């Protein structure tokens, strides 16, 4: 038995990545998620509109964080702010009762807002202050159904799964079988190989996306009220990023085991830090930046916005832009690394071999 134990430790010592996963990762995850995994919301972005906007805004305090006061605007502008994701709560003054519009796609924020509002009213009454009548109206997800909020995010998660894990396995399988090397000798250009490798996964993922959205709509009655084209654009950009991540993972993995390990390391933060489960706004500032470099964060903004709120493309320019930037950076570096594997003799500057080949050709 002792020989077995020694052998196992020796193998483990050589497998640095598994060792890192066993020791470093749990600590890292505990620290990150300790700061990130919070359901309680401390700040809720709020706009106040209508003739008494200034006075009402003066009475609002945290968690309501007033980001805009517009005495000239009415309830339609307030609803637009919620639709475009500029605020979670919009207070419409000027008529009785004062309307508190809330974005039902932000489950935890709405729950926090409702209880904070109730608490504010009670405290005011207890202090003998007259409180004007208040009406709360929840838009986009009036019954605060969890599946309505989860399904658009899960679409993204499944695309991450296909794009990153399945793609990386597909490429690593080729490397392990020794066929990647053979491809480098064929007349297929690196671009042919990369595009040929990615296209089937892109297609499968696209079909999968349609199926998931369809199942969400049929089984969970999740609404899809926005533009299919905007959703498609966001999904396509997002898929390019995840496929790029898959190829990047494969270029630094020698076998399928390593690829799975690394793909999970890439996927886990996306599950927990993208706003899929825990709201990004409730995360500690120190870890919140991680959410903003994860593509799923932006895809969730787009999918929830389009499916549940009919957010137009103009209001989603930021997540679309960031997804485009990520697509260029991630897919670009993935292609460069993959190209290096496929055109090895081009690696050493102006290789004499290349010159001779030109002469021979």
């Amino acid at each position, binding site marked *: 038995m002792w020989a077995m134990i020694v052998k196992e430790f020796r193998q483990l010592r050589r497998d640095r990545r598994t060792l890192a996963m066993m020791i470093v990762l749990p600590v890292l995850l505990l620290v990150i998620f300790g700061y990130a995994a919070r359901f309680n919301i401390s700040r809720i972005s709020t706009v106040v509109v209508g003739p008494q906007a200034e006075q009402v805004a003066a009475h609002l305090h945290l968690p309501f964080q007033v980001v805009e006061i517009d005495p000239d605007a009415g309830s339609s502008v307030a609803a637009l702010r919620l639709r475009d994701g500029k605020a979670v709560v919009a207070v419409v003054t000027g008529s009785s009762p004062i309307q508190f519009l809330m974005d039902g796609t932000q489950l935890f924020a709405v729950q926090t807002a409702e209880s904070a509002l109730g608490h504010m009213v009670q405290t005011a009454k207890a202090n003998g202050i007259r409180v004007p009548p208040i009406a709360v109206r929840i838009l986009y997800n009036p019954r605060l159904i969890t599946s309505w909020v989860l399904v658009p995010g899960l679409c993204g998660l499944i695309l991450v799964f296909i794009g990153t894990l399945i793609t990386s396995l597909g490429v690593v399988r080729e490397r392990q079988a020794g066929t990647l090397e053979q491809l480098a000798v064929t007349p297929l250009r690196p671009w042919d190989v990369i595009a040929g490798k990615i296209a089937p996964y892109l297609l499968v993922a696209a079909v999968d996306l349609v199926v998931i959205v369809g199942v969400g709509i049929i089984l969970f009655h999740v609404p899809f009220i926005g533009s299919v084209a905007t959703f498609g654009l966001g999904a396509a950009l997002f898929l390019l990023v995840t496929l790029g991540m898959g190829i990047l993972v494969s270029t630094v993995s020698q076998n399928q085991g390593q690829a799975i390990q690394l793909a999970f390391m890439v996927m886990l933060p996306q599950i927990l830090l993208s706003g899929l489960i825990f709201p990004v706004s409730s995360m500690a500032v120190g870890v919140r930046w991680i959410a903003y470099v994860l593509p799923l964060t932006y895809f969730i903004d787009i999918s929830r916005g389009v499916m549940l709120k009919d957010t137009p493309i103009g209001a989603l320019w930021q997540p679309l832009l960031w997804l485009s930037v990520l697509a260029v950076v991630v897919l670009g570096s993935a292609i460069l690394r993959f190209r290096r594997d496929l055109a*090895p003799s081009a690696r050493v500057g102006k290789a004499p071999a290349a010159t001779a080949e030109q002469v021979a050709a």
Partner: protein
Amino acid sequence: MTWGLESASVRFGQTTALQDVTVATEPSTVTVVVGGDGAGKSTCLRALVGLVALSAGEARRPPKREIGYVPAVGGLYPDLTVDENLAFSGGAYGRKGAGSYATSSAILERIGLADARSLLGGQLSGGMQRKLALAMALLHEPALLVLDEPTTGIDPVSRFEMWRMISRSAAGGAAVIVSTTYVDEAQRASSVLLLEQGRAIAMGSPFSIIEAIPGKLGVVSSPAQPAGLSWRWGKSWRLWAPSGALPDGVEPLRPGFEDAVVIASMAGQQEVQLDAGTR
């Protein structure tokens, strides 16, 4: 047109995998690269097809569409059928349709895989897998056929069939370069490169390599001194005298190709030791 390496060297970091190696192959000829494990055979062939960059020297090779290459490991998709493997290989070289199918059928017939067309690559035996990999490399009728240890680990009958395919391809006009660890296979070649520790220790036709061996060869009944210059051959021992002076009573022997390979290796080692001594 002659393809090959000219004074080629390959370095991986601090390690020299190939040092000043020259090898050439012409249309309708078979060149064999012989050497033990780690001698630099694969590096030599990989450098020739452009998978490894040279740190010095020159590689002459035709355009990629005219190269057929079988790596030492794999060379086929285990999760595709025999037919699908051939279809992919044909497609990668721009051979499609009925013509390509007819060519692949003819090749499969020749290598005895005609009944295995619908089997997965991974379901084939080791020998059949190597045959399929060779068939995939032959499908586009390459001008330069580069085969890295195509016969290692397969049974003697399959080895014989593989060599028949290799010879046939050379007869059809291809320049073929094959690496092997089996000395007997080298005798089939029109020229042989003998590699040891990344250096060429002999190059030429099997006959010229035999002719060029220095010293004399003799037969003795027990291991002779000095150690390292004799080796067992059946019930007797072979003794190499680098100076040409065999000890008294030792019967001289005309060396065969395998003797020549052993002697070239011994001479190469002595040279390496001398080099190290003078440094």
